Every structure is written in C-alpha cells, then in structure tokens.
C-alpha cells in the first residue's frame, strides 16, 4: 500500500513559498538577523494576554486575529473556527479582525513572510491557531481551578462557559477574564483529539462577513474616505517599458477639483479632490512617451514562436535554453509502440478582479501608512520602504477586504502599491492619497497568466498505455523581478505536469521547459501552473483512453493504481459514483471527467455539457474534493462553485491579446467573463480525511476546462487544442 502524503509534502506551492521567503530574507541572513526580526524592526508589538491571535473583551467576546487577507476565500471563517474549536468559544459570538503587518508574528509559516497565497491560509495556520486556542483555554481552566480550588482536569469548557461539574460551579469567559489574563500561557498546550471536534467540519462553520457584504457596509479600499484625502489617477504608457518623454498639464490643471499633476516612474499622476475630477484631469493631460525601450511584441507572433521552438524549429532567443523538469528512463532509446502527438495553446489571461487595483497611502518624513487589500504585506512594506527610505517593519499597513485578487494583488513589485506610494511621497505630510485604477488601467497593466504552449509526443503500448512521454512547455517564468536571481526551472509554471501520476506510471519521461524573456509582466493566476498543466494532462489522458477504446474513468484507474496515486483514485471514484458514471449521461448532455491535484488538494469533476449554437453550455458539475480535514464544508463547496466559475469563464472566453505591444482588451465588453445564466450548478462532495487540512481556494479552478473538453470529445470526437473554446 502506498503512503498517503501529507499536504505539506505534496504541496505544489512549496517552492514558490520558499522562493518568496528566501528572496526577502536573503539580505537579513547576511547580516545575521532572523528574517522575521529584521523585517519587523520598527513595528509596534502590543498584544493582550492571549497573544497575537486572540483578543477577549471584557464582555467575554472572542475576536480572532487573522494574519490572512479575506478576498473571498472564506478563510476568515475557517481560521476563526480553528481557534474557537480549541478554545471552546461560543462560535455564534466569535468575531474576526485583520492583523497588522508584522512579519515576525504573522508570517505565513510556509513562506517566512506575511502573506496569503498558494491556497495556504488554513493549512499554514492549522497548528499555530490550534495552539493559540488551546493555550487560551488552558488559561481559563487554570484560573477556574485556582478560584474554585478544584483540579484542572475536572474543569470543562463549552460555548465560552467554564464549569466544574462536581461543585456545580461555572463562570463565563467574561467573569474569569481578570484571573485568566494573569495566567502564563502554557508553552505546549494540549490539543484536542480531532475525534472530539464539535465545530470543525460541521455546517455551523459559516462566513462571518455575509451581513456586512450584503448591506453595503463591508469596507474595501475603494470605500476609504479620510479627512483631507486626495484621489489620484495615473496616465500610463500604452506599452510596457515606455517612459514619459514629456507632458503638458495645462488643460488638466484647469479641470475643477484637480489639485496637482506629478510625474512619477510609471507615468503622470493627476491628483484631485474627488474621483471624477481626477478622471477628467487625466483625460485632459497630454503625454508623449519615449518608446525606445518598449516591448512591441504581438501575442500571435509570440505564440507562433513558441510553437516553432517546441517543435525544435527556429532559433532560440539568446540566453534561453531548454531545461529538464522531469526525467526518467532513457529517452534516447527507441521505444516500440504507437505514437500519439498533440499540442496545446493557452492565451494570456487577466485576473479581472471585481475591484480594480487600488491603494491608499500616506507618506511623511520617514514614515508611511498604507490602507488597502494587502495580499503580501511584507513585500508591500519592503517596496514602500525602498521608495520612502525607512525600515520596512515601520511601514504601517491596515489590510482591508479586497474585491478579489486571484493572485493579482501579490507581486514582487507591489506595482499599484508602489505607484500610490510614489504619489503620496510627492504629496507628503501624511496626507492620504487614494490611487484609483479604472477597469481599463487594470486590464492594460499586465501581470497576466502567461501565454503558454505545450507539445507532447507519447508512445503507447499494445494496450494503449503510455510507455514514453516527451513533453515540452514554453512559457514565461513567474519569478522574473524576484529580488534574488532564480536559477533553473520555475516550478510554479510546470507544477501539475511535474509530479503527475500519469508520468509516474510511465517508464520513460523527458519533460522540459523553455522560458523565454518577454517584457510582458506575468503573474500567478488562480491555480498558477495548473491553469494549463491540468488541461494538458487531463485532456490528453482522455484522448489516450479514447484511442485505446477504454472508458476514461477505467483508464485513469489503471494509471492511478500503477502510480500509487491513492488520493487521485479516491476522488475519481467519488465523483464517478455521484455523477452516476456507470449509467448513461442525462438525455441531451455529454459528460466529461477530469482529476487534478494542486496545492495539496485533490479535485475530480464530472461536467455535463451540450453544444448550444456551437458553443459549450455546462449544466451540472459534480465535484469531489479531498482537502484533508474539512474545516467548513459550506465554504469548501463555495470555493468549488466559485473556482469552477472562474475556470469556466477563462475556458469559454478568456483571452488577452497584444498587438505590437498594446493590450487589445480594455473592459468587460472586450474581455468577456461568465455571467449568471452561463453558470453551472455545482454539487460538491467532500472525501473524508483526517489529514492536516490543505487549501481549496484554487484547486477547483483548473479542473473544469479539461472536464468540459473531455465532454466535447465524448460528444463529437473532437479534441480541443487551444483555449478559449470560443474563438473570437
């Protein structure tokens, strides 16, 4: 029997985490400091008796401090539930607050810096918050034991009430607070046996922010109103790498409400008393751009080059070479069998979060404060500190809800944050400046999921199973701009092909990646490498199954058993069972299945699809997910529903194209996204597991596109060689 790996061992984000961490801490280690300490110098640290993650008010109300931003994933509910479970707090009264930026205390334990990403909020906090909750509980128990002169072992806690059955005494957290707050927190608090959990894994774990997000009171960056605040908009260059040659602000300054116009590194900023004035001022600006260093690539040309290079034709760009990321057996040796060859093309994709990127910054002499949806506060602190000239730890960040991110708010340059800080520095005197990007700014700014090409050549044995697998990937690295140079393969771009159970089940593997340097900013996009690797692996497998005359589920089972992929097998079987795979598909619908692991979580989906006016329409999606111990079944389902919509949106319509370096899409009229009537009905089934939890924010996303492509393959025998499904 094969060992079931813990999420940490299999987590695809590990290398990214390490690289982000190493990047930031490299300098710190050189000077002999611990990275958290160095990055936190200047930070205020003033926590209550129960430490940095728990506050208990005089009324006994428990507030859990979240080191992770909430931008939809539901992590605030999950994080709070972990604490409430161990503390035995009254869940109905538990509140959640966002932590300040202090890397030393609030670092993501997988990254080494404070940040949210790689679907890691719950998994990296699991032990930390259980200990915090258990520690606080122990303080109440000891306080009660002292007060009632009873053995601590006889004290119980339920719903924020501490009791001693023998003496019949009980007291609320509020009543015991003065004594409990004086007890020293235990060094090694005893955690519950998961079998005794009463909150975790139940339907009681629901969101804490639904009311505020249904009555308009939830506070986003866009909503920040501060005394004396200015609003800024920036005229950006039409091409990446262009610079301001000259500008004329005469007309802009005539617009009522415009306060000042500044040149900043990324363009020309119009600062005004309100948003509309800033916008009108920007329209009135005249800017000439120096395009001598500008990127003028067209995406069609890039894609053609990628195809050539993958096919071994054409000349590779300078300093670009193929790098192996998975090698097994002797690829040079001729293998007997049938050859199957295929290629796939994937476009650039915009994240297009509902809230266009924005930030509020205040800069004074040697000090700075940011108020916005900060995804990687430590990076935002470092980039701000560089501009302002201060210690990173002293950059104060108040993190708000963000209207989505999907990866966009986490980048090494803190692009929109740095832009806002540059303007606030010009304004000075700690006067608040809100940088507002329009949708057009947001879409043109880049940081796209990279254009990607895959080319495969597979040799099959007489039963139709792969005996050799040659795989070529051409894509930009996501690590460009990382403060430390990255050598070798950027594994975030190939995760999902690398480590695939299908490659484990194949004796000869020769998988290589080419990462050409293109000056179009790219970034992780919900589920990162899996956005294309899941499609390639899963759609290929269905084509191989079809070629072998085998059922796609049965074909996968054989390969998973060969690879020892027990978790893949479990979700495959669960999804197939719940979808009634052994029975015909509902009349009029075709069915496709796909399975993929990302960020330590396994997801299988069966999509029911038909063609309407030649376009795929997805009706029902049956999803099986195994994410270790489920904290909030309802929010796991919500992430599957949302992840599927996000993935389906891109699969159906998503495409960013560039012509001579200019992004052709500007808004939702040209970058079409999924709408309500196009959304499938998702049914989520959670495979029970007692392992440590893994994330669910991303893993639902990459599976839907291949499931749909496989349904179309079953419908009409046609494979899908490029996304999106809808061609222009």
């Amino acid at each position, binding site marked *: 029997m094969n060992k079931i790996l813990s999420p940490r061992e299999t987590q695809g984000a590990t290398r990214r985490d390490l690289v982000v961490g190493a990047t930031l801490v490299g300098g710190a280690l050189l000077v002999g400091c611990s990275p958290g300490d160095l990055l936190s110098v200047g930070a205020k640290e003033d926590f209550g008796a129960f430490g940095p993650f728990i506050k208990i008010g005089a009324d006994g109300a428990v507030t859990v401090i979240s080191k992770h931003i909430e931008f939809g994933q539901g992590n605030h509910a999950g994080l709070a539930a972990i604490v409430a479970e161990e503390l035995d707090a009254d869940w109905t009264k538990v509140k959640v607050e966002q932590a300040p930026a202090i890397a030393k205390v609030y670092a993501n334990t997988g990254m080494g810096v404070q940040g949210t990403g790689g679907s890691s909020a719950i998994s990296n906090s699991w032990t930390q918050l259980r200990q915090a909750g258990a520690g606080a509980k122990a303080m109440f128990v000891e306080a009660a034991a002292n007060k009632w002169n009873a053995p601590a072992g006889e004290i119980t806690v339920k719903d924020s009430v501490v009791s001693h059955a023998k003496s019949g005494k009980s007291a609320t957290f509020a009543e015991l607070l003065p004594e409990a707050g004086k007890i020293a927190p235990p060094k090694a608090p005893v955690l519950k046996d998961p079998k005794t959990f009463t909150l975790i894994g139940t339907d009681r774990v629901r969101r804490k922010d639904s009311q505020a997000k249904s009555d308009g009171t939830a506070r986003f960056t866009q*909503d920040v109103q501060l005394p004396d605040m200015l609003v800024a908009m920036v005229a950006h260059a039409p091409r990446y790498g262009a610079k301001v040659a000259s500008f004329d602000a005469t007309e802009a300054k005539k617009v009522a409400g415009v306060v000042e116009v500044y040149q900043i590194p990324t363009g020309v900023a119009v600062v005004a008393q309100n948003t509309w004035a800033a916008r009108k001022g920007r329209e009135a600006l005249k800017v000439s751009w120096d395009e001598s260093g500008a990127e003028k690539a067209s995406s069609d040309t890039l894609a053609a080059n990628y195809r050539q290079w993958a096919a071994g034709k054409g000349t590779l760009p300078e300093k670009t070479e193929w790098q192996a990321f998975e090698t097994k057996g002797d690829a040079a040796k001729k293998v007997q069998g049938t050859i199957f060859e295929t290629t796939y093309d994937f476009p650039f994709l915009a994240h*297009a979060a509902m809230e266009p990127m924005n930030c509020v910054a205040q800069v004074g002499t040697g000090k700075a404060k940011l108020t916005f949806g900060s995804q990687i506060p430590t990076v935002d602190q470092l980039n701000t500190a560089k501009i302002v000239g201060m210690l990173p730890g002293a950059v104060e960040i108040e993190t708000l809800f963000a209207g989505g991110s*999907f990866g966009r708010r986490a980048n090494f340059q803190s692009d929109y944050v740095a832009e806002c800080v540059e303007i606030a520095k010009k304004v000075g005197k700690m006067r608040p400046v809100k940088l507002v990007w329009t949708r057009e700014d947001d879409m043109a700014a880049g940081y796209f999921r990279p254009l990607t090409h895959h080319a495969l050549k597979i040799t099959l044995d007489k039963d139709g199973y792969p005996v050799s697998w040659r795989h070529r990937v051409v894509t930009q690295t996501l690590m460009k701009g990382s403060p430390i140079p990255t050598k070798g393969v950027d594994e975030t771009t190939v995760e999902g092909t690398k480590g695939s159970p299908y490659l484990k089940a194949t004796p000869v593997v020769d998988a290589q990646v080419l990462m050409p340097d293109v000056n179009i900013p790219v970034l992780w996009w919900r589920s990162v490498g899996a956005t294309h690797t899941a499609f390639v692996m899963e759609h290929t497998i269905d084509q191989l199954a079809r070629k072998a005359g085998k059922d796609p589920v049965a074909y996968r089972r054989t390969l998973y058993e060969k690879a020892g992929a027990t978790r893949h097998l479990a979700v495959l079987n669960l999804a197939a069972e719940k979808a009634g795979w052994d029975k015909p598909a509902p009349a009029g619908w075709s069915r496709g299945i796909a399975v993929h692991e990302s960020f330590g979580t396994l997801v299988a989906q069966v999509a029911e699809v038909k063609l309407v006016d030649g376009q795929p329409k997805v009706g029902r999606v049956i999803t099986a997910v195994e994410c270790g111990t489920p904290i909030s079944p309802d929010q796991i389902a919500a992430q599957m529903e949302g992840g599927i919509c996000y993935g389906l949106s891109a699969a159906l319509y998503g495409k960013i194209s560039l012509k001579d370096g200019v992004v052709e899409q500007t808004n939702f009229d040209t970058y079409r996204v999924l709408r309500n009537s196009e959304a499938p009905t998702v049914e989520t089934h959670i495979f029970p597991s007692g392992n440590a939890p893994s994330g669910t924010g991303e893993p639902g996303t990459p599976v839907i596109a291949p499931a749909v492509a496989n349904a179309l393959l079953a419908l009409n025998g046609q494979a899908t060689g490029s996304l999106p499904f809808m061609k222009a």
Partner: protein
Amino acid sequence: MAMTLDVNGKPLAVKAAPDTPLLWVLRDELGLTGSKFGCGVAQCGACTVLADGQPIRACVMPIEGLAGVKITTIESLGGNSPLQQAWVKHDVPQCGYCQSGQIMSATALLAAKPNPTDADIDAAMDGNICRCGTYQRIRAAIKDAAGMAPAATPVAAPAAPAKS
C-alpha cells in the same frame, strides 16, 4: 451649480458638476459607498441602484438627468430585507464587492416579479458580473427570498449625512 437629488427618500443638495456620473456623487460626495465601481461602462453592474424602481448603472448616469428621480441605494434596504436575509442565510458573498449591485438588481426583479422563473432571473441578473462565481447561490437566495415575502420593497432609510 448645486442641484438636488432624491436619494433614499431624502432631498440632498449636491455640488458636483452636472456631467458627473451618479456613482461618484453617491460615493465621493454623499458618502454612500455601498454602490461599487467596477467597470465605468455599464458592463458589470457593481454600481446598480434603482431610479424610480428601475435598476440603472450609476457609473454612466450623469446627475443632470436625474432631477426628480427617486434614487434608491443598497443603504436604504436596512440590512434586513428578505433578499438580504436570504443572502446571509445562503452565505452568498465571497469577496463581496459585487453584491450590493446584485442585491439591487434582485430587488427590482422581485418588485416586478414576486415569483421569478429561472428565465426571469437570467434576464434580470445577467448584467451583474461576479468574478468569485457566486451565481448559483445568488439564484438560490433570490428564490428563497421570493418565498419569504410577497415582494422585497425597498424601505426608505436616511442617507448618510452629506459631507461639506
């Protein structure tokens, strides 16, 4: 150049230029930030408010055409309307940024069609984008709210005080 807008049942004097879209007057001048900016071109619906009961995209509606029109924003619903209760019950929101607009579109829908069909929901809600993909729960919450009350009529509530 001041004009008066009827917002959430109150006449409010506003100083903004007549070509200013209603959205920026609501948000920047009146402090009603529940209605969101998402696209600026009436494509995403995050800014949806009601004008005499009909859903409009406030981001493209200059205030000069709105004299005498009754504007209703998310702030007027009071937080406890049948739709809002259903939204909370189903934990509809994820990031939450689009939800004010979704709820305003749904409010207009239920006012016109107390028992909407799926086709009615498609027609009324397709103008509201949700990038988190909460569509399935939005649909469920609308149906739930339709069963909860005859119609979700907006309740007039005081607007936030106008800033000087």
